[in-house]
């Protein structure tokens, strides 16, 4: 094992940001892939794989990817939601790998939502 210098130490810490992020739960943005039975049948597993692959490819370490169950709009699966801290989530529907790539590059990397793929903004409220 190599002995660390102080710069090595700091670099190790910065590279481990993703671990910290996952365990502390405070991210710049959160991507939720809906993986209820309807979602999985429509191909949500691939969508999740694509999201994780893109996170790794672009070296993004302040965004969390997580899954949730059926969102209710089964006919438009696969779906995902992009939620920035303190902003309402944007739901994207009828996805495939290409669309996910475009959404990631635009909404996650540049901060611009992609209206053509979106269903709407916001969450359902109760009552």
């Amino acid at each position, binding site marked *: *094992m190599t002995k660390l*210098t102080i710069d090595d130490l700091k670099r*190790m810490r910065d590279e481990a940001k993703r671990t910290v992020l996952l*365990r502390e739960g405070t991210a710049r943005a959160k991507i939720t892939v809906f993986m209820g039975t309807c979602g999985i049948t429509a191909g949500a597993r691939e969508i999740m794989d694509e999201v994780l692959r893109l996170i790794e490819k672009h070296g993004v370490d302040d965004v969390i990817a*997580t899954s949730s169950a059926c969102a209710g709009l089964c006919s438009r699966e696969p779906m995902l939601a992009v939620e920035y801290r303190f902003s309402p989530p944007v739901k994207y529907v009828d996805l495939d790998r290409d669309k996910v790539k475009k959404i990631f590059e635009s909404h996650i990397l540049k901060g611009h939502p992609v209206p053509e793929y979106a269903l709407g903004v916001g969450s359902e409220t109760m009552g």
Partner: protein
Amino acid sequence: MKAQRTHILVCTGTGCVSAGAFDIMEAFQKEIKKHGLEDEIDVVPTGCNGFCENGPLALFEPDGIFYQRLKVQDIPFLVEEHCLKGRPVPILMYVPHREKLPIPAMKNIDFFKYQKLVALRNRGRINPEKIEDYIAFDGYIGLAKALTEMTPDEIIEEVSKSGLRGRGGAGFPTGRKWQICQEQPRTPKYIICNADEGDPGAFMDRSVLEADPHAVIEGMTIGARAIGAEKGFVYVRTEYPLAVERMKKAIKAAEDMGLLGEDILGTGFNFKLSVVRGAGAFVCGEESALIRSVEGKVGRPRQRPPFPAQKGLWGKPTNINNVETWVNVPQIIRKGSEWFASLGTENSKGTKIFSLVGKIVNTGLVEVPMGIKIRDVVFGIGGGILGDRKFKAIQTGGPSGGCLPEELLDLPIDFQSLQSVGSMMGSGGLIVMDEKTCMVDVARYFTNFLAEESCGKCFTCRKGLERMLEILTNICEGRGKEGDVELLTELGLMVKETSMCGLGQTAANPTLSTIRYFRNEYDAHIRDKTCPAGFCKGIITYSILEEKCVGCGACKRVCPAKAVLGDKKEPHKINGEACIKCGACVEACKFDAINVG
């Protein structure tokens, strides 16, 4: 690093391990692999999460969902539902006492909500056997700063300004202790971590060692730099095998990375650490006895002054601090003394870890800011008394501490206030007692423990505790005499004032504090030969209340000693001579007709 979407943090502190946590971990790993999710989901063993009553525990991040009381048979369903289908599982979540709805998120659970984690900041979130995890959360950055941006004097000044006081029990200002040791001209100097933790019911130090051993290493290395030591020892009681193992692994991992040993972080500073195991003596938690034990001699305290800081291990200047004191140091250096001093009270800065045990709903390990009221710990975090019984007393400070009654529930917890009422902070044990606890028996229990653990050197401690134990046992068994309480008080004060070490000096606290606050119980035992709590088998009697008994015969049927007499539909009676006081009748009676007193 491969992107992942979930980390399952499984608590593997000793408490959960003894409830099967390693099996739970294996089950998680097996299920995750079965569903092909091992690239996306990591199963991480962590140190003690604190909620020991409800183990085995698992936390799913980043969702923050908390699962408790897990069994191996639950895991396949849990993984399938939560990981594959994204549906958290309510039946495995925590439901507060007397409520119906589960609370999914850990941060909303009362037990966790009111705590402030400083010393325990890494609990439940890092794998203690993976140094990379410790580094990810700013590990060893404090050490880097201390070695390259500060002089030893500046380090000591920062620790002094923070107001950190020893967490082992005496509460001596840490900065001042370091100063005294640093100023000594003799070399070599030594650093020791006291992880003996002899108090019955205390497991704060054990949890820190099992959850975050690197924090101890980092703290000790910073201390070594400040004082000018090149060798250190971690003295762990041998009854903590998991803590010993994790500490040894951590030391090796740190050495491999150049964070311990020769030329640390390339700065030329050397500090070596080794683990020494205790051999089961409570008195070895006392610093001078501990030093003797490290030297290979019998653990017996010696006269002070000179203090270990002046003349300790092998006659050289030695700085000993408790585990909890050490783990606060890296953060004080990294975040600054002002941050630390902003927590706590005027005379007690920072936080304190307590092991909350006894007749409390939420048994476990908690860390709270100094100054929090006892009531908030017992009822807010602790969830109140088990079985909805009534609070009677709380013992703080382990066998060296005193028992405090209900009237003192609003007392803020800090060094000064606890001492002013006849108790002390000690190392952080909080034992909660209810109406069925006999306070005289409590005094007897702790006096028995201390009498056995006394090293025997001082006549008053050795003989005084023995005699106090005799008197207390007599009282509990119905042989107490008028004048016993006064004699106990006199003996207690004598032991307190003429013992050489902390064990003897505080040994009388349980007895003296129970006499002070629960005198009526002593009187009842001595004068009326009854035990108000219904505990002391020697003098309690079971009897049937005629007005409540309907003659159903349930008690007669369950009595193993055939001590219940009576005909159907007639009030029954208990034959006192035959009764073995097992309590089976009390449990069988549906009319609350059995009186114990």
